[in-house]
């Protein structure tokens, strides 16, 4: 995708230089802008890209109001029923899958974020044996194809005789989330001036006070980003989950299975709700950031 955007930017730049040549026309002649190829190509391309990106989301949202019977492919009329009775269809299977996904996401995120943050701090702040080896190994879960990772884990659980349920899913998710947490938090720790923690120690802060009052608050933006990323990855994961879930249903797994016989509109409802929730979260954080910037500016 980014390559295409770059290509569009190059096209735009080309048209600009063309315009400059136009401006060097005869003195006194009215400056008329000839509409170049780039003048409409870039906007048109941009709009097309957005439409392309938005169609699946728009479809999901619109069809959550479809008065569907069995499959939810053709439009049959507008209704709020799907939104109002989201948990009453198929014995609440959609809602159960959704709830499982949320629980798995939350637990895996908390564990992965706590462990990952500790690992990131250790990797940046301390020199110990096998430090570089550990750094490298942490990249492996990100580099390995999910199918391999999922199948490998499933084989281990089988060999150990561990029954596959929610716990095995949480273990699997925690494992691959840790890598992403370490990478995200490590960047933040590296940019943290060690003198700040030293100043904390110098000002009579015990090691735990220094961590909770200085290190942790300063790492918070990185930790939050890591946690959001973890949750999104966990909530979204299908491949690894499918290998290690046994009979436990998660939201992606439910959708995948029901896709073969027609996805119920309730799935659209849940997906739309998640999407709206994410939008509200982003907008709220932007507003609060703007308000804070304004407050700080006022102090000057």
């Amino acid at each position, binding site marked *: 995708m980014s390559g295409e955007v770059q290509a569009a930017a190059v096209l735009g730049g080309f048209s600009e230089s063309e315009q400059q040549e136009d401006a060097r026309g005869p003195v006194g002649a009215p400056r008329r802008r000839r509409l170049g190829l780039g003048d409409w190509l870039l906007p048109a391309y941009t709009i097309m890209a957005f439409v392309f990106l938005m169609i699946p989301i728009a479809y999901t949202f619109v069809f959550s109001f479809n008065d569907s019977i069995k499959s939810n492919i053709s439009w049959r009329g507008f209704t709020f029923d799907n939104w109002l009775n989201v948990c009453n269809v198929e014995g609440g299977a959609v809602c159960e899958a959704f709830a499982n996904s949320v629980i798995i996401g939350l637990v895996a995120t908390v564990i992965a974020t706590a462990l990952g943050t500790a690992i990131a701090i250790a990797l940046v702040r301390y020199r110990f044996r096998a430090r570089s080896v550990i750094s490298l190994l942490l990249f492996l879960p990100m580099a390995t194809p999910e199918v391999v990772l999922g199948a490998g884990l499933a084989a281990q659980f089988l060999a150990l005789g561990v029954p596959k349920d929610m716990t095995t899913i949480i273990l699997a998710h925690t494992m691959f989330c840790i890598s992403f947490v370490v990478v995200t938090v490590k960047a933040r720790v590296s940019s943290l001036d060690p003198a*700040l923690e*030293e*100043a904390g*120690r110098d000002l*009579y*802060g015990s090691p735990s006070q220094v961590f909770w009052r200085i290190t942790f*608050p*300063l790492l918070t933006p990185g930790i939050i980003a890591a946690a959001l990323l973890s949750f999104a990855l966990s909530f979204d994961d299908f491949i690894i989950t499918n290998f290690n879930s046994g009979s436990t249903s998660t939201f992606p797994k439910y959708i995948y299975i029901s896709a073969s016989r027609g996805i119920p509109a309730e799935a659209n409802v849940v997906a739309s709700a998640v999407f709206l929730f994410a939008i509200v979260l982003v907008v709220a954080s932007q507003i609060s950031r703007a308000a804070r910037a304004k407050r*700080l500016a006022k102090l000057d």
Partner: protein
Amino acid sequence: MSVREFAERGADLQLVGIQKRFPGFTAIEELDLTIPAGSFFALLGPSGCGKTTTLRLVAGLEEPTRGRILIGGTDVTDTKSHERPVNTVFQSYALFPHMTVIENVAFGLKRRRIGDALGKAHEALRLVELDHLAQRRPQQLSGGQQQRVALARAIVNRPALLLLDEPLGALDLKLRRQMQLELKTIQEEVGLTFLHVTHDQEEAMTMADTVAVMNKGAIEQMGAPAELYELPRTVFVANFLGQSNLFTGEVVDTTSTALTVDAGGTRIVVPTARAQRHRGTVAVGVRPEKVTLHTHEPAGSADRNVVGPGRVLDVSFSGVSTQYLVDLGALGTVLVFAQNVGFGPVAALGSEVWVSWEIMHGFGLDDVPGEAGRFPADDSTTSIAAQRRDSLVSELEEG
């Protein structure tokens, strides 16, 4: 000494046989140092000489490889940083960006559970004239203001020992003077012991009662600023603390009062009492402002060294004084600082001149330039030129 209460007064600091090795290099070879309570002590040296490591050892941010650290007679070598009655003003200030100015200043008091932390913090901010900015974040302050907050955050704790790591380095000249004065005033009021680390000889000399010149992990010479300047004992001190004209030669005559050195065929006399070595090859020197420039050969005198004739290589007029670089042939070059008591320079570029100085102003060093590879040969014309260029650059930066 508990950190739960304020220090009554400054405490003396003793470093006994300190050695600090890092993987790959030794920062401090062997250091013994006693800083009396209530003094303003400066550790002066070039970057990499081990002065900042010394400071960090005292603060408890590094552990010595060997040796003991005593504060007020108590051995603190094995105590952690937060258990020592010591506070540091960091070179980078290290203000906590997520706290307001007042929260920064009150941080140490709150950790020690000292009553009325906020009141005392405001008082400290008033001392550095920043109480009106108490609710700001550090990043909303100028560099000079941040520095004063860092200072307030340290002194509010009334430590027995205050460590300053080049705290005035980032300030402009005017603000630096102001802060120097403030530090002196605070020290006199509160009676703390100050340990100041700097590479700025002027800062060290104007502020400290005692200056220790450090080089390559060891103290070269220690004493009152004037004493160090007037009677340097090593080539490093002679060149690092101000500038020196150094001549190396064989001792040819020694009496109880005077030592005569033959340097490249010229006889130079220094007082025996001001010479560290009395036989063999020695380096003798004189400060540039003690040297007088003559356009005619002066009459010989028993209490002056007269050298010449030589040629003026360079003249640089700086208003109050003029610097001349004189080529004396086999003796090398001599730098002369002359006050402009008349109008303009007295000797033109390329003219023939003689130089002279009072014998009592000369000094004899313990080592010679380039000896044992420990000290760089700093008496070459290129290094004098480089030194002068550096001082010009720093003047420009300060201006």
